[in-house]
């Protein structure tokens, strides 16, 4: 029995402490007392304004504008003049009834939105009359505003959180906004700020009677952090203009930092459509447009066979492995021939070609041979393919780039395993996969990866992860400062760069040449089994110390020099010189209209992934 005293003692000690504590908080300290008569306490959310998003030059991309919501607490709503309310806020009676029923179904005690995003004027009129609508009150919040429009896919849009989302993210409440796509989504935590709360006493007439307990439990809202994006908004808007009535995408990167200068997808939409009272109506229209898919970000999500620009990678891998050098020649006989296999070529040469003219003329035979030599440089095709694949992947291809964009695709770089699975172990040889030599076949790249490829060549062998935001609040992002090098040594890049320069000087992009800027590029015409070929171009400028690398895809644009190369040339000129010296070329591009191509092939001509849902 003696040993029981320990437990008795502890029980006594705890009970005594509890009772003393209860006595203190319930009887002595009256700071917790509530004025519990007819006054009700209302909790008012103070929305934190989301951070502003600037472009790299300090131009405002996304700002805020005030708006007002009318909320109702169903069990406090008393008989009211519904016609008058509808007239004041400008909605249909039917709509009001539906909203009130919805609110009742959600909760009788918690506020639900009845009319959202009223204008300042409606708010002013309603405010004076609010006393006659018991159970209703007004809540201020901020909406997004896009002063210049454009870049809708980059900045993204905000949407109201769904009930399912709240379940997984308890820090949100009904009617809160969150970033649904773009920067708004990937930088949600920085942008959203911290909500505040205010407790007010209201009397039976629904009038505010001052703050509860002198505001002791109120917290202020902390605005979200401002962001500086890496985008050049002016260039972005110009690029969107150039892509009008064409489908495809443009990505440009600053090679020395990995900052994304522009990220265009076409067709796109005006971000201001997704703000305000008509938001859900407009959203439905955009979402249901299964033909043009304006909400689908082609620059990040579409995957294309890259076509000829990929020849550059094969040349680099060949140089690194020693199967190719700048003096080695191949002679084209209207294509590449191996047994019954035949890859056509329209380079128009019949003399031995070296690497630099091979790039300038985009000779299919030259690069099929280069690829064959790479694969055959190892005892078995498997080993050869794996060495090739490993080098190609070091260019950031076939993998997610781990950047700060909320969505993306890996693309596809096949390896020996891939072909073993497709053809059976050793059921294939170098020539079975020869179309990889000219960027066709199983290979898939996203436009972002292609632009990054341009940046790698511009840098002569390294890249920084392409990213979209430069500073959050006052701090510069440091997570993208790591330099990533390829498996190809820098010295092998010079001949390839010279080849790309010759593309403008004497090759396939002669027509887009401009005297004042030494540009480097590579045209591409990606075969499209579903319709006209895609027009592809990757480029950078100036040749030495490059400031911009760019990739362009114009779907069903026939061939590279027809649409993609002139657009790239114009954009680089505009970025480097701030002016355009070729107005008639600019006019031709802006007015160029490919919509007949898309109509003809209505649903057959999408890129491989474009049929899938976004995100």
């Amino acid at each position, binding site marked *: *029995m003696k*040993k*029981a005293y*320990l*437990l*008795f003692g*502890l*029980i*006594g000690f*705890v*009970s005594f*402490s*509890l*009772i003393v*504590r*209860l*006595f203190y*908080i*319930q*009887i002595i*300290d009256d*700071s*917790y*007392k*509530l004025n*519990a008569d007819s006054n*009700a*306490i209302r*909790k008012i959310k103070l929305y934190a304004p989301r951070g502003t998003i600037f472009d790299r030059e300090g131009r405002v991309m996304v700002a805020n504008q005030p708006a007002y919501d009318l909320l109702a607490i169903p*069990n406090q709503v008393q008989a009211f003049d519904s016609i008058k309310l509808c007239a004041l806020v400008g909605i249909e009676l039917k709509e009001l009834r539906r909203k009130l029923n919805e609110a009742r179904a959600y909760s*009788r*005690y*918690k506020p639900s939105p009845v009319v959202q995003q009223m204008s300042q004027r409606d708010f002013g009129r309603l405010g004076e009359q609010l006393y006659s609508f018991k159970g209703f009150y007004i809540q201020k919040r901020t909406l997004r505003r896009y002063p210049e429009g454009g870049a809708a896919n980059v900045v993204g849009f905000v949407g109201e959180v769904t009930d399912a989302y709240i379940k997984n993210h308890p820090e949100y409440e009904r009617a809160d906004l969150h970033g649904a796509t773009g920067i708004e989504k990937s930088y949600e935590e920085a942008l959203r700020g911290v909500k505040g*709360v205010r407790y007010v006493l209201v009397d039976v007439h629904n009038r505010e009677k001052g703050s509860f307990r002198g505001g002791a*439990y109120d*917290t202020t809202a902390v605005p979200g952090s401002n962001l500086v994006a890496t985008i050049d908004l002016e260039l972005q808007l110009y690029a969107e203009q150039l892509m009008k009535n064409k489908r495809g995408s443009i990505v440009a990167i600053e090679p020395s930092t990995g900052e994304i200068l522009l990220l265009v997808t076409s067709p796109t939409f005006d971000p201001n459509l997704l703000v305000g009272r008509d938001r859900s109506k407009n959203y439905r229209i955009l979402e249901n447009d299964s033909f043009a898919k304006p909400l689908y970000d082609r620059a990040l999500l579409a995957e294309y066979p890259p076509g000829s620009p990929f020849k550059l990678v094969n040349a680099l891998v060949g140089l690194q492995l020693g199967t190719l050098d700048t003096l080695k020649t191949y002679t084209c006989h209207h294509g590449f021939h191996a047994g019954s296999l035949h890859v056509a070529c329209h380079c128009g040469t019949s003399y031995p070609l070296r690497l630099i003219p091979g790039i300038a003329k985009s000779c299919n035979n030259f690069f099929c041979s280069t690829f064959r030599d790479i694969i055959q440089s190892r005892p078995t095709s498997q080993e050869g393919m794996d060495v090739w694949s490993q080098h190609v992947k070091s260019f950031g291809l076939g993998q997610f780039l781990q950047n700060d964009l909320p969505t993306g695709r890996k693309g596809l770089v096949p390896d020996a395993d891939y072909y073993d699975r497709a053809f059976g172990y050793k059921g294939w040889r170098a020539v079975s996969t020869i179309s990889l030599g000219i960027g066709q076949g199983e290979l898939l790249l996203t436009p972002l990866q292609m632009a990054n490829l341009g940046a790698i060549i511009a840098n002569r062998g390294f890249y920084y992860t392409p990213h979209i935001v430069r500073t959050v609040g006052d701090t510069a992002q440091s997570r993208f400062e790591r330099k990533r090098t390829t498996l190809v040594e820098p010295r092998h890049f010079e001949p390839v760069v010279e080849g790309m320069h010759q593309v403008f000087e004497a090759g396939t992009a002669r027509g887009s040449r401009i005297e004042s800027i030494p540009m480097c590029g590579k045209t591409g015409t990606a075969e499209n089994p579903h319709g006209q070929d895609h027009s592809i171009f990757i480029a950078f400028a100036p040749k030495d110390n490059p400031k911009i690398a760019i990739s362009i895809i114009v779907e069903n644009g026939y061939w590279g020099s027809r649409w993609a190369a002139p657009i790239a040339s114009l954009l680089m000129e505009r970025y480097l010189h701030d002016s355009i010296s070729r107005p008639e070329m600019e006019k031709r591009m802006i007015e160029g209209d490919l919509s007949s191509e898309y109509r003809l092939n209505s649903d057959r001509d999408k890129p491989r992934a474009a049929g899938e849902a976004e995100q």
Partner: protein
Amino acid sequence: MRDNRSIFANLDWISILIYFLLVFLGWISIYAAVYNEDHSRITDLSQEYGRQLLFILGSLILIVFILFTDGRLFEKLSIPIYVVMLALLAGVLVAGSKISGARSWYQFGSFSLQPSEFMKFATALALSKLLAGDGREAGTRSKKRMPNKALIALIILLPVAFILPQPDLGSALVYAAFLFPLHREGMPAWVIYSLIWAVFLFILSLIVDQWWLWGGLTGLGILLAWIFRKERHSWWVLSAIWVLSIGMSLSVDYAFNNLLEDRHRNRINILLGKAEDPSGIGYNTNQSIIAIGSGGFAGKGFLEGTQTKFDFVPEQSTDFIFCTVGEEWGFVGSVLVVVLFTTLLVRIILLAERQRSAFSRVYGYSVASILFLHVAVNLSMTVGLAPVIGIPLPFFSYGGSSLWGFTLLFFIFIRLDAYRMQIL
């Protein structure tokens, strides 16, 4: 004296009455906490109070079942029960569903079962069996040596090992309760005293500047050494304790900053007044104290609590159920609940002491200690005396698993107690 008809005459009606009082008070508090005008019937099954009624009816079935079972059966089956429950507990890590961040539940349609709530009585049974030994006579306890210490530790720590990764720190902490029955059965007292000293030092190291703390410890040591100067080994013992205490205060800083998770660290910091955050981590505690404090002497009356009604306090029907009592029944009601729990605990210990079999005594001690830990931690947390550790208030909180787990725990002891007259 063997007389099976008199089972009901031998039941301890005082503790049974307290049990039903607590269950009933819990039920109406849940009603008040989640009260909803649209579903004002207290039996409405779409609401928590309606479902709690179902759980109470389920408990009645369990009670009848336990009372009509032969008391010896629990002793015989203690190890199998423990093994089965342990398997269920292990299984939940694999097949369980995640509810608010912890994988502690088996989900069957709309109902879910939390095996850790049933592990407590199973562990108590197994520990009692182990400490009682085979065929040991009452009264010969002190002559026998303790059974294998490693086995005892294993029985208590295995459930902890399965509960921690769920993760459910609260439920795992409860197993510290088994130190009391161990102490009662001969574990040296210094184990518990040093544990209490360690907790005390832990808190002191966090709030007091370390030089003051070391000075204080040294002063205390010298004082004690002078008081016990005639004892032979006091000098050695005291220096050992002094060295260990200093070491502990040094390691606390490291453990606190490096080993604890952020949320636990934050809760402790807020409690110690080192950090303030009324709308973030400290929100629960702050709102809970406001609710209780606003109750005043006599409370605001049934269903009149504004803090409760406006959903200011989170987890109102489970871990923070005591807020409703505090707000609506005031100081009077709160003290009544504290007194009811205290009476029940003391009663159980007294009953345990009068047992003739070691098994029943150890089990009784386990029951009292587990309930004590729950009540102490839960109530201290709601009034802001302890950090927020999510464990339910026994018999009171909403939830089938917790109610049934505690009912099994408690009534098996009532049954064992009723059977004591039949042990000669």
